[in-house]
């Protein structure tokens, strides 16, 4: 199945949870925030939320800004 992660399409041979995807791209769970298909998903829900084919996930962190 295909998932769009931060704008890039990725192939998965299973249905990963948000927690797994965050881990897979190398982000630190404590330092990231997630949007799944337009909705913000709280960190406590990542382990319970499974992604479907075609889902779009944004994994965001803090960056410099004015």
């Amino acid at each position, binding site marked *: 199945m295909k998932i769009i992660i*931060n*704008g890039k399409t990725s192939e998965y041979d299973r249905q990963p949870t948000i927690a797994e995807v965050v881990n897979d*791209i*190398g*982000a*630190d769970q*404590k*330092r*990231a*925030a997630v*949007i799944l298909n337009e909705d*913000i998903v*709280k*960190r406590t829900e990542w382990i319970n939320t499974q992604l479907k084919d075609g889902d779009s996930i*944004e*994994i*965001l*962190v*803090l*960056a*410099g*800004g*004015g």
Partner: protein
Amino acid sequence: MIVDELKLADKTFSSRLILGTGKFSNSQVMIEAIKASGTQLVTVALRRFNPERPTDDLYAPLTELPEVTVMPNTSGAMNAQEAVRAALLGRELTGSRFVKVEIHPNPHHLMPDAIETLKAAEILVEEGFAVMPYIPPDPILAKRLEDAGCASVMPLGAPIGSGQGLTTLNLIKLIIREARIPVIVDAGLRAPSEAAAAMENGCGAVLVNSAVAAADDPVMMARAFAEAVKAGRTAFQAGLMPTREQAEATSPLTAFLNSTS
């Protein structure tokens, strides 16, 4: 001794200089500049995690500064809905109640969208945020945002990153005249003297980013801005002398020096 603290929502700050964290060459310089500035409030942005650049993530550097309050901005948002989403994400990431609402859809001048900013501010105040909106220097808009429950208003001095200086002082003075929340000049400043001028005229605080980060020596410049903000605030409290069209001597014009004939 009168304690002169900056009050924003339910927090008080002894520093009236706020620093942006963008454009620094590396996070070590950023940390040193923040320390040198004495600031207790910094802005941050949100961006996609990039596995090729994991050190762009400010989370770790910011934990070195536990006394500094982190305020996410909504930079990148093109409208109120996106700004609200960015604010909620920022709160997820930082736990902070503070949010700088900035909505600037035009990349040439980065001027804030007043209408979307007011919409976003009203929603975010309802959601319990301490809203700090980045605005054009419009006294009517400023009053609406104050009435909506914002913690401050942040009128621009000049376009973001332009270094054009405090070009909007006359209009900012109109805002200060009627504001009952702090008026914080944000954007466009270049020199510490401009920060001092803003404070002398009654601004509650000043926010700079490029002026420090893009200086030849950001750490030194951060120190200069800290001193300028303090000088300007003290001058404001001291009360500047009146201006006159006619000269008034400060020494007695003593007749004995004149020739007697």
